[in-house]
Each structure stands twice: as structure tokens, then as C-alpha cells.
């Protein structure tokens, strides 16, 4: 089988599974994911609790399903936010060029040089440590990379002859931007957004792991994994299952990302 077909199949399957789990998890889970049950704490996987229970006796499977919903929702909104703002900044920067562009990009680069945790911490402190705070913080943290890519695309598109053609027609720069450049940024943005979904998921769980991230007790895979660390010796399943979910999702995203890239941009085949 050729690689792209393989990628699309496995990646699509994994992400399809994730979406189903998330969709189901948002509506129904075997147990209430927040329900404490002290008599059953740290119970090993069994018929009643397929994936065991955590230190508060909460059902791990239910939490994983609810966590899928939260993680998908957060990742989607974050990507949307970063794409929208990044695109606006990138378009503007690529449009005005000159020293304004240089200043914007200098800030952009400095922001990229920031460790994510500091940025997230700062922004979380400003916007509040809740689900939407995370979205805003991660969204802002990922905006510079979108802006950079959009600006690069804009600059390379500007060299294309159809842009020259638009100018020869007498179209204004703004019209050219909206009619010709923006639509042609969609393909690279799709590729970027796909892989960014994975990065955001990873960032959210990494932040949770360092003690930030989506505030518990609402389950996300990241905070479940982080919460499992002290019990890793006694209750291995607590750490295994959320990590497995994150890894499989990232694998799905990576494969699907490769497939999307092959489809939209054959020139970049196999690139990261």
C-alpha cells in the first residue's frame, strides 16, 4: 500500500475513533466522571470498572471519555483562535511589509523564543485559570507560528504571476489580498491546523503535567496523567490509559496530517 493511503486510513480511523469517543463522552459515560467513591479508590481494572478507578474512586473509562470531549473541544477552539489571529497578523504583516513587518516579526520571533510554560502561565494569570483561559492562553501562544507561516505564504504568493496579473488589472492591494492571497492561504493553513491540533493536545497535557493546564477535577487526559504520577507504583493503569489515549490521538493526527499534506501540497510530501 502506498504511504498516503495508509496514512489516511490509519490516521482517519484513529481520529474517527477519537471523535466518536468525544461525542459519546460529552453525552454519556458509564459512570459520572466526577463521582467520588472512596470505597473503590485505586481499584484495578475489573468488570465493573473496565479501566479501573483513580485515587478518588472515579471511573477511569468515564473520565477518559469525558476527557476526550474536553480535549477535543479545547484543541479545536484553540486552533481556531490561533488560526484566526495568526492569519490576520500574517496577512497584515505580509501586506504592509517594510519596517512595520520587521517590527511585527521581531515581536513574533521573540514570542516564539518564549518557553510555552511562561507564556501560558502569564496569560492564564491574566485571563483566569479555567477552560476558556487555557484556550485563550494556548491560542495566543500558537498565534505567532501561524502568523509566521501565513506571512511566508503571503510573501511567496506575492511573487506568483497571478498576483501580478491582479495588479495589472488595476485591482487594489487590499482587493488582491482578499480575493487572491487569502483563499490561497487556506491549503497551507489546513495542513498547519491539522498538525497544530496535535501540538495543542500535547501542550495542554504537558502544562497539566507541570501543574498548570486545564483545572481538575474536570478530566482531561493531561491532568489525568499528571494526577496519576504519585500512584504510578500502586496503580499503573492510572498512568497507562490516558497516555495511551494521547499517544494514539497524536499518532492519528500525525498520520492524517501527512495525508492531508500529501493531498494539498504534493511538493511537501513526507516533510514534517
Amino acid at each position, binding site marked *: 500500500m502506498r504511504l498516503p493511503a495508509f496514512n489516511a486510513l490509519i490516521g482517519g480511523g484513529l481520529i474517527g475513533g477519537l471523535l466518536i469517543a468525544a461525542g459519546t463522552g460529552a453525552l454519556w459515560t458509564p459512570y459520572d466522571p466526577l463521582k467520588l467513591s472512596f470505597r473503590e479508590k485505586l481499584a484495578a481494572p475489573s468488570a465493573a470498572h473496565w479501566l479501573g478507578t483513580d485515587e478518588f474512586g472515579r471511573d477511569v473509562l468515564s473520565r477518559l471519555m469525558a476527557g476526550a470531549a474536553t480535549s477535543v473541544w479545547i484543541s479545536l477552539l484553540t486552533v481556531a483562535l490561533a488560526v484566526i489571529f495568526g492569519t490576520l497578523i500574517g496577512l497584515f504583516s505580509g501586506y504592509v511589509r517594510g519596517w512595520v513587518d520587521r517590527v511585527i516579526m521581531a515581536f513574533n520571533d521573540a514570542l516564539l523564543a518564549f518557553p510555552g510554560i511562561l507564556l501560558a502561565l502569564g496569560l492564564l494569570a491574566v485571563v483566569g485559570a479555567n477552560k476558556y483561559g487555557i484556550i485563550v492562553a494556548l491560542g495566543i501562544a500558537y498565534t505567532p507560528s501561524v502568523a509566521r507561516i501565513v506571512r511566508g505564504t503571503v510573501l511567496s504568493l506575492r511573487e506568483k504571476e497571478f498576483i501580478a496579473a491582479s495588479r495589472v488589472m488595476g485591482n487594489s492591494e487590499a482587493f488582491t489580498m482578499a480575493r487572491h492571497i487569502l483563499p490561497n492561504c487556506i491549503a497551507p493553513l489546513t495542513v498547519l491546523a491539522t498538525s497544530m491540533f496535535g501540538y495543542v493536545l500535547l501542550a495542554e497535557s504537558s502544562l497539566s503535567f507541570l*501543574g498548570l493546564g486545564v483545572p*481538575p477535577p474536570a478530566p482531561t487526559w493531561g491532568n489525568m496523567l499528571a494526577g496519576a504520577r504519585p*500512584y504510578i507504583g500502586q496503580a499503573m493503569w492510572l498512568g497507562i490509559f490516558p497516555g495511551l489515549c494521547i499517544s494514539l490521538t497524536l499518532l492519528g493526527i500525525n498520520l492524517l496530517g501527512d495525508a492531508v499534506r500529501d493531498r494539498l501540497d504534493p511538493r511537501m510530501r513526507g516533510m514534517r
Partner: protein
Amino acid sequence: MNRVLASAFMLAAMAGPAAAQSLTVSVPADVRSINPGVNRDDNTDDFVLQMVEGLVGYDEGGTPGPLLAEKIDVSADGKTYTFTLRKGVKFHNGAPLTSADVLWSWNRYMDPKTDWRCLTEFDGRNGLKVEAVEALDANTVTMKLNAPNALFLDALARTDCAMAAVIHKDSVKADGSFDKPIGTGPFKMGEWKRNEFYTMSAFEDYASPKTDGKIDGYLGSKRPLVKDVKFLIVRDPATVKAGLLSGAIDMGGILNSDVDELRKAPSLTVQVGTNAVRHGLLIQTRDPLLKNVKLRQAIAAAIDYDELVSAASADLAKPNNSPLYPGSSYFGDVEKQGFKYDPAQAKKLLQESGYKGETITILANKRPTAVSFPQAVVAQSMLQAIGIKAEIEVLEWATQLDRYNKGNYQMQAFSFSSRFDPALGFEQFSGNKDKQPRKIWEEPQALALIDKAMVVADKAERQKLFDELHKRYIAEVPMIFTFNGVEPYALSKRVKGFEAWQSKQRMWEVTLAN
């Protein structure tokens, strides 16, 4: 077998060839400095206070008593304190203790350049002002206050102020910078290797206040019976565990969750000490919702304290709703009466309060040593059970502390550090929010009672005040204390005579069998 090998492997580096009389104790963090009361934390106090001593110190029950002083006389107006120094006390460098040393030390602390942490406690900025200190003779010192204050001695004994320890002036270098503590404590400063370990050794000429072998807080029998003590910095609890099992560490604090496992180890004993740290749920009484007493009472009745405490302390602690800690000499029958877990009553109160499903957010943090998060999770679940829409917002500790200081929250799972005197214990969370937003209880009568307890010296009268305060607190529910700190230690069976007390690893009277 394998496990022991692996552990031995990893810990051989720490152990070194241990002399018979050397004790290795694990500590979770490095000391911040060895300069008493300047740059400190609990760990630092613990180390420094084995080497230096103040005029007064706490006894086992948290009451200040004479340490370097032999006796303390208070004038009739309560404003003049006369300290008579104990005879035969020597500094580590052999110099005898005199009133001149007390004066020199005190003046050094009161010099802003010293950066003494407790300067504001004594210069009038917090009310109390020591107006004059004089040496009447080589063995007598007097201190004059601006006003009578029942808590003056307590303030002097505070461990975070390093007991206002008396040190020899050679502790300070010629250029005025601090060198090392030359004090009168049972141990002498050894070596300090940053981020790795610090050591101290027995002071042979130590003059113990008593020699009956009975440990009594910072007083009592304080003989140094081991030659050296090495405090090894081991940040990770799992390493501590491995070190204890392998014998590379003789004793150390362990996690609540490791107690069961280490109890089973044949070479170890486990001691669970308690301390005056008070865990609880703070309530912002100025919150539009939570200013409603009925709602606060409903919250208090909704919580199953046995369940919450067992979940949050890994079954080690017992519930205590009182602001007083059970070890206190003021902790009596009244204080044992806590909140009643009664879900039916809670629902009834909730209905009476006119609560309409508004969200109540509980702040918490996930510091591994704090019990904030588990308390919040359990409380949330219990509040939800009676129909309160409770949510948790997990903050990083510094942010939570900032919200605490600003009073900007509805509820939070918080811990108050040790305060031995009940008046201070109440004062810690009570006061006028306009002046200090971090305060929680601002009911004027309660504040008046606390103010009174600050000046009244008579124990029986104080007991009445505290009982009254406790009852008011239970009725008003300005906040909910849940339980007190527990501190499990694991010790090699070779270690004798250690008693866990108030997060302090006191090394006097401890012996090491071969």
C-alpha cells in the same frame, strides 16, 4: 534482592563511610541560609534552631518558656520584662553568655540592615514596640514595651523569627556580613554544600536546661548524644523511601501515602507526628452570595468530615474543626465540638438561604505537600450532593496566595501554618478586611474578643475567651477548619529517642545504636 541492590546502588553516593555516631537525615530542600531569622523557611529554622537559642522558646504544648533565661519577671503594668540569664551557658567558641551578647544580638536584629524577618513585629509597625533594652548587670536584661502585650514572649519564641536567638558577635565578619552562627545550641555548625547537604556536630560544652532525658519542645532536656548529623537534601520522596529501605538514610519525612508500605519494612519504624498546621476551607464572607450565614452553615453541614479528612490525609489524620490545634493546652471539650455533618439539615439550610443555583468556585493548588486539591475535590463533590453548584479552579500556589492576600475569591482550600498561641491562631484569619483584605472573619465582637485575648495573661480567663470564640466561629462559619497537619517519619530501628514535633527534626536526645 534486586530492589535492595538497585537502591544500594543509587544511594551509595549519598551514604559515604558512615561513622557509628553519625546520623543521616533526609530533608526535602536545602536551607536558604544559616543566618538566623533572615532568609529562612521551615527547613532553615529547623536547622538553625539546633545551633542557636533565644531567651525564650516554646514548650511541647506551644507555650513560651525560659530557655537562655532562667526566669522572667513582668512588671505590674505588664510593660517591663526582666530576663535573668541562665548560668554556665557558653557559646560554641567557648565564650560565656552575658547580657552584653543579648544586647548586641538584639540591636543587630533591630538594625534594618540585618533584614531580620520579624523586625516589623517589634518596631511598632504591627502594634508591639520594644522601646528600650538594657542590661542591668552581666546576667540581667530588661525590655520595655510600649503597651502591655500577652503575646510578647510568644513573639520572641517564634521559630520563624529564629527565637530572636542570641549569637556571639564573632558570627559576623569584620565587614559586617554574616559568617556562621556561633550560638549556644546543642549542635555546632558543620559544613554546608549547597544543594547537597549540610551538617552539624555535637557541642560538647552544651549546658542543657534540663538533663532528665525528657524532650519538651525547645526547652527541657537537650543533650546532643550523636556526634554528627548530616542533613542530606533528597527532593524526591521516592528516593527518600529507597534510601530508608537501603539504610543509606537513617531517618526522614515520608509521604502520607507511603506510610503503609514503610510500616511493613522490618528495618524501619514509622512515627506519625502532628503539628499545628490547620487545613481548611476559606470562605469570603463579603461575597454577595456567601455573606449569607445560612448558606455558610449549609456548606458546613454538607461536608462529611470523616470522609474528607480520610481522603485528604491518606487516613492518617482525624477531623478537627477548631481553630485550635489539639496539642494546645487550651484545646478542651468545647473545642472538640465541631460542625455536624447532616445532609438533610444542609439541604434545609440551603433552601432557607434562598440559594438559586449560583456557582460557587473553590480555589485550590496542586502543591504535592499541600492537601489543598484533594480537599477541594471532596468538598466539591459533597457540596454538589446537596445541590450547590460548586466548581474548582486550580491555581498555581503563588497565584492562589495572591488571591488570598487580596481577598479575591469565594472559597479556597488553604492551610494556615503553625501558630501556637490560640489568640494568634484566631488573629491569623480574623481582622478588618478594609485594612487587611486577606482576613476572613471580621465580626466586631469576635475581633474584640481576640484583642482581649492578646492582652489578658490569665490562663483561665483566656480559656473562656477562646471557648467563646470557638462557639461563635461554629455558629457563624466564617470558614471551615478541617484537620491539622500530620507528618509521618520513617526511622531506622537503630535511631532511638526521636520525637516528631511541629515539623521539627530535633536531634538532641537522639541516639544511634550500632
